[in-house]
């Protein structure tokens, strides 16, 4: 069932304590800041969050972590020059970390959305991140068994949605959006624009509306994020 919702607050209101929440974005590109802020305000806690990173600076996911609302992070790259809130929680032993190679993270999310019970991959074989996992020699390569990552909710950002919930993204802000939309039981999307049904070329739809449950329009202008002092997109 697809709903168009007026505010980000209403969109995230159903997220319960203890939920697993996928959050789109790679760094800040594609990160649904308004939905994350709303998740802060709604008070849900004891969350398991799936994201490539573990928050940066003093916004978005970093604040959720700072406020102690995240019990566990599943991510590939938690440590950054400005990941001080995660760093503090980690060193204090107040947050659990499941570190996953980035491609395994993506494929585990994809597998969940595709109904795959797990898969063997060469990535990580012979490393500490494969310790305790089943391995097999397949096609002449040692491979490691990885299981899917399911989620209760996905919060993602797209550029446009049409009336059917079909989504298009913008440049490298697409990143984890399409696979998280498919992997979660309930997918909430923030978009810059809602366009009439029929105005997106069906050949160019990236995420079909079947994966989308809630759409909320936010006022953000695409690609307008500020740069930090290192010239990186903050």
């Amino acid at each position: 069932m697809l709903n168009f919702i007026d505010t980000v607050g209403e969109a995230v209101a159903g997220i319960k304590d203890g939920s697993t929440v996928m959050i789109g974005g790679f760094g800040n590109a594609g990160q649904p800041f308004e939905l994350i802020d709303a998740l802060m305000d709604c008070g849900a806690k004891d969350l398991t969050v799936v994201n490539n990173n573990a928050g940066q600076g003093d916004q978005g996911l970093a604040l959720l972590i700072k406020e102690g609302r995240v019990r566990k992070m599943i991510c590939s790259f938690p440590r950054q020059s400005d990941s001080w809130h995660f760093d503090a929680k980690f060193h204090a032993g107040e947050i659990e970390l499941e570190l996953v190679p980035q491609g395994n993270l993506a494929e585990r999310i994809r597998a969940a959305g595709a109904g795959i019970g797990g898969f063997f991959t060469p990535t990580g074989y012979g490393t500490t991140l494969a310790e305790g996992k089943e391995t097999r020699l397949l096609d002449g390569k040692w491979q490691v068994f990885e299981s899917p990552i399911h989620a209760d909710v996905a919060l993602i950002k797209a550029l446009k949605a049409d009336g059917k919930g079909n989504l298009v993204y913008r440049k490298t802000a697409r990143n984890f959006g399409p696979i998280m939309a498919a992997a979660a039981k309930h997918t909430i999307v923030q978009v810059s624009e809602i366009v009439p049904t029929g105005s997106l070329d069906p050949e160019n739809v990236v995420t079909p509306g079947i994966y989308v449950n809630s759409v909320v329009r936010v006022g953000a202008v695409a690609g307008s994020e500020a740069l930090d002092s290192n010239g990186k997109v903050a």
Partner: protein
Amino acid sequence: MGTQTSIQTSEKPLGRDELAQLVARDIVPGSFVNLGIGQPTLVSNYLTEEQNITLHTENGMLGMGPGAVGDEIDGDLINAGKIPVTELPGASYFHHADSFAIMRGGHLDICVLGAFQVSATGDLANWHTGAPDAIPAVGGAMDLATGAKDVFVMMTLLTRDGASKLVEACTYPLTGVGCVTRVYTDKAVFLTGPDGVTVRETFGCTFEEIQELVPLPLKRAE
């Protein structure tokens, strides 16, 4: 010139930019290439139009152009190091699972990575020092090391303490097993594989001097 071996191609060790230039020159025209964060990024400065190289960035793009400046800067268009970049004509975008399928599926010709250590059999250690208080962060390093057809490493041959980073067996946690095919250093280029390590060329020192620095048996390029 002294009594160097015939494979010495420079009288001085190479600087970072000279090394990047050498790696760029060795990339076969028409290749699909991923340049790791840090020193490998310099390689893009020396790729020529005639080489027709397509750059991949693991956050979902083929056909990545140079770093963005001024009005080109767009928060939705960044590379794996989260630096704003540009797109070239013929670029394409795709989601993260497709991006890593490009690597894992063996479609990427070359990736160029930095390293803490490389072993005699091409094992790579570049993601974690193993220090107990360090927060581990792997990103796409393991996927790149395992997936690309050729893995080139760029590093200084020696640590600040003078120890060789080319070692019999890595002491740092591994990123990938037997994955490195070439090691470009300031003092020499090494080819790694099941038959051991071959010195292709040296810079500012002889084969014999390299052999004294590296604690494993080296072969001379034919």
